[in-house]
């Protein structure tokens, strides 16, 4: 998969921009607030139909406009496809080769991106919610069906919470318990599968960048899961375990009006040797951990799907110490992946650049090609 060209129309502060990315590294250089992150945001939105940072679709549309569009030409398995996404009056529509995409699956077929932003660097020390989002993005990249499955789960969960708040009779509530348990078990299985695939990759990548003796570990085990071993349980056993968990907490949930057990409250525990990274890792170590996770994710996607995802790096270099930044740049240069990166300082990313690197300067929403 290669991204051949990109164009933006009224996307955030980009009025009308066209880019021709390199097959390898493309760098957008600019001061903060000029619009370089918006270039990446557009690609992310195009590839996932979800915003990377903005919380509302309307925030993606250029101020004062009602219509916005991002499109990209991709080479997918030897064929050239144009995919596009439009926001018109707050409604998003996706197109493949000019035709409205019939389903999300047909739209997502083959395009995958891995984004890496400064926000990701705080995942280790941040909230469990941040870690869940981080994990779920990776799960979705690996298992596209996860998108529908997690939407189903959210819907089942919201329904149950509504019944809890409305003080619905237990007979009605228990039907939703069983539904939450069924869909929830599926999410557990997906997350477990991805983390299983990443485990050795994370250890390996971390030992290359971590400068720490202790091995890195990602642990995921749902809380209050009585009677089953999460690592080996079948999906059905997990379903029964979650149903039992919901049942055991029913009185409490009923009093508080929300569901306190399930994939939506779980946390990913990152460990360095015996210690919890959240409590003990230095800032440098926690960033190395995130970096190791991303590298493992990229390599896993390549192993399982046969091609490298498109990598988006938003001003990450300025947040890393020189040595870790050097590792990352070296990794990018050697990976052969197509990379779009932004930076305030071209020097920081120069070692990832090669002869075929394309350089762009971004200023007040205008993008122009420049010589490196």
């Amino acid at each position, binding site marked *: 998969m290669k991204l051949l060209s990109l164009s933006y129309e009224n996307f955030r502060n980009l009025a009308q921009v066209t880019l021709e990315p390199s097959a390898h590294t493309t760098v957008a250089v600019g001061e903060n607030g000029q619009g370089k992150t918006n270039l990446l945001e557009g690609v992310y939105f195009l590839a996932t139909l979800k915003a990377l940072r903005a919380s509302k679709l309307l925030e993606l549309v250029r101020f004062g406009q009602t219509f916005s569009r991002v499109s990209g030409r991709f080479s997918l398995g030897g064929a050239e496809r144009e995919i596009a996404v439009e926001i018109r009056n707050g409604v998003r529509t996706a197109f493949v080769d000019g035709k409205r995409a019939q389903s999300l699956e047909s739209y997502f077929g083959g395009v995958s991106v891995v984004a890496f932003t400064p926000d990701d660097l705080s995942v280790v020390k941040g909230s469990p919610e941040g870690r869940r989002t981080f994990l779920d993005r990776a799960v979705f990249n690996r298992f596209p*069906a996860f998108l529908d499955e997690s939407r*189903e789960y959210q*819907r089942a969960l919201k*329904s149950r919470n*509504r019944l809890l708040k409305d003080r619905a009779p237990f007979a*009605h509530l228990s039907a939703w318990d069983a539904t939450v348990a*069924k869909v929830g078990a599926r999410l557990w299985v997906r997350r477990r599968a991805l983390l299983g695939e990443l485990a050795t990759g994370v250890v390996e990548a971390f030992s290359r960048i971590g400068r720490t003796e202790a091995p890195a570990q990602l642990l995921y085990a749902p809380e209050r899961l009585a009677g089953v071993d999460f690592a080996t349980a079948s999906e059905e056993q997990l379903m029964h375990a979650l149903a039992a968990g919901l049942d055991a907490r029913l009185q409490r949930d009923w009093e508080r009006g929300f569901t306190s057990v399930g994939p939506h409250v779980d946390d990913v525990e990152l460990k360095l040797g015996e210690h919890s990274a959240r409590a003990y890792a230095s800032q440098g170590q926690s960033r190395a951990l995130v970096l190791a996770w991303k590298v493992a994710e990229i390599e896993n996607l390549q192993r399982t799907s046969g091609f490298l995802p498109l990598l988006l790096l938003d001003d990450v270099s300025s947040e890393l110490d020189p040595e870790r930044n050097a590792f990352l740049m070296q990794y990018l240069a050697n990976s052969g992946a197509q990379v779009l990166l932004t930076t305030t300082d071209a020097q920081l990313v120069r070692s990832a650049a090669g002869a075929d690197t394309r350089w762009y300067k971004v200023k007040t929403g205008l993008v122009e090609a420049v010589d490196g």
Partner: protein
Amino acid sequence: MTPDALNRLVAQLAKLPGIGEKTAQRLAFHVLRAPAEYARGLSAALLDVVDHVSLCPKCFSLCDKAHPQCGFCSDTRRDDKLLCVVEGIADELALERTREFKGRYHVLHGVLSPLEGVGPDQLRIRELLTRLQDTDVEEVILATNPDVEGEATALYLTRLLKPMGIKVTRLAQGIPMGGDLEFADQATLARALSARRDI
């Protein structure tokens, strides 16, 4: 200025689902231009539907008011031991098109949906239970949709019906027949894969 009578027609048509103001106007002009017989026929058909069609008191499918029961309930060739529970009349008709199912139906007229404020009392569930009290029904097939609401409704019914000693079954999920694997969406395919069976 268009005459009030035309405006009233446009306003009424625009209330129909899927019909916007412009389409309503186009339809109204069509009625106006057609021979007067068409408009009389249309209005008679509209009134007939309201005056003569009601819900069957037994299965809540559509029924001619002149008859005490709908065609499905009064058909003596159908199997009284099998009862298929569906969300709506459209689902019932879809099943009927297969010409395979020869049991009886029960239409719930919706599914449990807390987010839309639909609970068991808004559905024809009490009527289903009353109906099952003293009948020959041996098996109830739950044919609600495979989404979370349909699933929760099926589970809710299962818990009510099982204690009554009735066999409860659910429609299988998976790849549509005659459909190519390549056209199945990923969630369906994933589900079908995990529910695979020995042959």
